[in-house]
């Protein structure tokens, strides 16, 4: 790739400071690091590992569903597998994926800081993640749980399977998530570089900030809920047990008070990644910067008042259901504002159709579809028909896989040169992206249809006339799986053999490209002074900064 003028300047001006990858190469230097970039890379490796495990569970489920009757696994194993698929994908992959991996790596770079506010706490958050994951995996090996990832009482407090270690694991993972969120909020408040006002903050920082608010305010409620269920299992306290005067619906309220905002923990950072990539690959200033920034906060805020839409058929009053339904639709409004602005950013931009841009296209299509079905599901009357069917499964996979995983992959490709100083093979990237987007549609569009015809989720057997659509879905999942395997292979090869990247291969004006790629341990030789908006493509200055002489 030809060096741009800014790149050559950066190369010529940069002293040969060791990059964060070269600064200590022993295992201990990684395990004992305080460097946010190394913590981010360790998170990235872990979440990808768990994504593969969760993906294998998903494929096994789809193989069983090829046949309407008993096939491949027995019913109890099937129940365990969908539980583990949910637990692994949500607590071990989606929640930490973008904030803890990419957020840790690029957030301090984007705001011109040398590290996050509490580097030791940051490492502690990683070890809590490892501990929580280890306990949960231990539980899975010793039998696993069959409650679904939602742990609904009183089944979860009475089933003989290993629910306890998984509850405990999720409890600890929650604290990892809280500490990361706390660290980011304090970092954004106290460590912004001179000149970086709130209205100049990169949009990824805005959305990560909004995510952190949810992580801090919602996760403790999940913590106490899981703790009560654990105590109930061990000591029969009966808080959620109707036989002892307890109320299982109270569990649902408390669980969804966390778990619905948790959806925005998964999707808000994804929106941040897309905001960055849309600008970089359209070479255009963000259209409606303030609208995108404030709508992140809007989603975080309104997300706290929507949990009741999970309880439409759980004996909630009609008034409550209506109120929660309307509040839930506000999320659609804020999301639509973002989609409008992303498309507005692309309009008349100089689009370069690289792999991240392919994922942006997939993301936009999936979030519009997933979002619109979400608004439909928030309508009480429709939800009563679709409740607990494959329609819901397809809807939330459109958001969680369609939106969040597409954004994760966009970010992975966009920041791969930033993190490792190597380039990935563009051709293979586009092949894999096409496979994934096609495979995804083939997997989940049949599920929308199945749900509408009335096939309930989580059932081991189904009537024979549903078989054709189930086979189509499994075929799609296989394509999807191939796509991920291709990405995994070429990225691992690129880590070692990829050609060396220039410091800013995309010519991006995002602030994280102010420093070298991969960055030196202390990020900046001198803390930059920010004089521009992020992604300001009207000038030919290097991103964000005019260094003060």
């Amino acid at each position, binding site marked *: 790739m030809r060096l741009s003028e800014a790149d050559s300047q950066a190369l010529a001006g940069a002293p040969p400071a060791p990059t964060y990858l070269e600064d200590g190469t022993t295992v201990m230097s990684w395990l004992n690091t305080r460097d946010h970039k190394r913590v981010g890379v360790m998170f990235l490796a872990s979440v990808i590992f768990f994504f593969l495990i969760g993906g294998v569970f998903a494929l096994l489920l789809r193989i069983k569903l090829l046949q309407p009757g008993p096939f491949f696994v027995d019913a109890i194993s099937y129940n365990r597998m969908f539980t583990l698929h949910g637990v692994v994908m949500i607590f071990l992959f989606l929640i930490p994926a973008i904030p803890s991996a990419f957020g840790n790596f690029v957030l301090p770079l984007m705001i011109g800081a040398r590290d996050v506010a509490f580097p030791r706490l940051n490492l502690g958050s990683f070890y809590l993640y490892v501990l929580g994951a280890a306990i949960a995996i231990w539980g899975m090996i010793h039998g696993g749980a069959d409650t679904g990832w939602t742990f609904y009482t009183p089944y979860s407090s009475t089933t003989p399977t290993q629910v306890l270690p998984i509850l405990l694991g999720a409890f600890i993972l929650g604290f990892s998530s809280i500490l990361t969120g706390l660290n980011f909020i304090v970092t954004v408040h106290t460590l912004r570089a001179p000149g970086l006002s709130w209205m100049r903050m990169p949009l990824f920082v805005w959305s990560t900030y909004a995510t952190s608010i949810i992580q801090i305010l919602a996760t403790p409620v999940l913590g106490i809920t899981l703790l*009560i269920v654990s105590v109930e299992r061990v000591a029969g306290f*009966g808080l959620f047990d109707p036989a002892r*005067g307890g109320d299982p619906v109270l569990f649902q309220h408390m669980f969804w008070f966390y778990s619905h905002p948790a959806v925005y923990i998964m999707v808000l950072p994804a929106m941040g990644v897309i905001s960055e990539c849309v600008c970089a690959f359209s070479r255009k200033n963000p259209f409606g910067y303030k609208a995108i920034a404030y709508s992140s906060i809007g989603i975080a805020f309104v997300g706290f008042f929507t949990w009741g839409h999970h309880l439409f058929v759980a004996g909630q009053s009609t008034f409550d259901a209506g109120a929660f339904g309307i509040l839930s639709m506000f999320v659609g409004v804020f999301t639509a504002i973002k989609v409008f602005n992303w498309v507005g950013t692309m309009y008349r931009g100089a689009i370069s159709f690289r792999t991240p841009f392919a994922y942006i296209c997939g993301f936009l299509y999936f979030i519009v579809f997933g979002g619109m079905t979400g608004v439909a599901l928030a309508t009480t009357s429709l939800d009563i028909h679709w409740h607990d069917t494959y329609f819901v499964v397809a809807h939330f996979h459109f958001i969680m896989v369609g939106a969040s995983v597409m954004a994760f992959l966009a970010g992975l490709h966009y920041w791969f040169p930033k993190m490792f100083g190597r380039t990935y093979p563009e051709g293979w990237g586009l092949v894999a992206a096409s496979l994934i987007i096609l495979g995804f549609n083939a997997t989940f569009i049949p599920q929308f249809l199945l749900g509408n015809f009335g096939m309930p989720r989580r059932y081991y057997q189904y009537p024979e006339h549903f078989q054709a659509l189930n086979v189509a879905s499994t075929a799609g999942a296989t394509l999807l799986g191939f796509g991920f395997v291709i990405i995994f292979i070429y990225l691992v090869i690129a880590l070692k053999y990829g050609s060396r990247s220039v410091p800013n291969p995309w010519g991006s004006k995002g602030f994280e490209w102010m420093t070298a790629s991969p960055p030196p341990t202390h990020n900046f030789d001198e803390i930059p002074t920010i004089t521009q908006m992020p992604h300001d493509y009207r000038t030919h200055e290097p991103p964000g900064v005019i260094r003060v002489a």
Partner: protein
Amino acid sequence: MSHEAEPLGLPEGILAHHFSSLDRQNEAMRLGMWLFLATEILLFAGLFTGYAVYRFQFPLAFAECSRHLNIAAGTVNTVVLITSSFTVALAIHFARSDKPRAAAICLVLTLLFALGFLGIKAVEYTEHFHEHALPGKYYAFEEVKIPGAAMFYSLYFLMTGLHGVHVVAGMSVLSYILWRTLQGRYSSKYYTGLELGGLYWHLVDLVWIFLYPLLYLI
């Protein structure tokens, strides 16, 4: 790296490399602590919600069970905890006026009060065990036999138990701070660590101030 704003005479290793000044670092530490306290409040909020729901459902049983708690012990414990909050505040005051020895004495007093609190709580728990006033399925208290009584004791043990865990956590924090005080880390130039430990202890105290009327004074 230069730290122009670094005050003279500060012990080694207080100002981290990535902060431009001590003021900025203190601001970050305080904000971090307040956010952490918010998460603690939300952790307890789950139990308070449960309490609200079941008290609304079983008002008679809750009132009746509350009357069988040891109100003297609860009241003494409230006084003990409030006093310990005062001694922590004094410790911060003394550290700020460069009297580390007095600060250390106040911290020791706080720890003793905390132990006293746990002792009284242990006596109460023992009484409950003897009376079989136990949570959920173990409930066999002879004196209150209306539905909802077991639920009261479930909540009572969960709430005071979780609070007790926080007392122990607070004591560990205060012990660490006591050790740091004896090392001479805190002075008028820097006392944020001590201040944050104090904040945490105030939270432990504050939670009890809500638990006491809700459980003992219905």
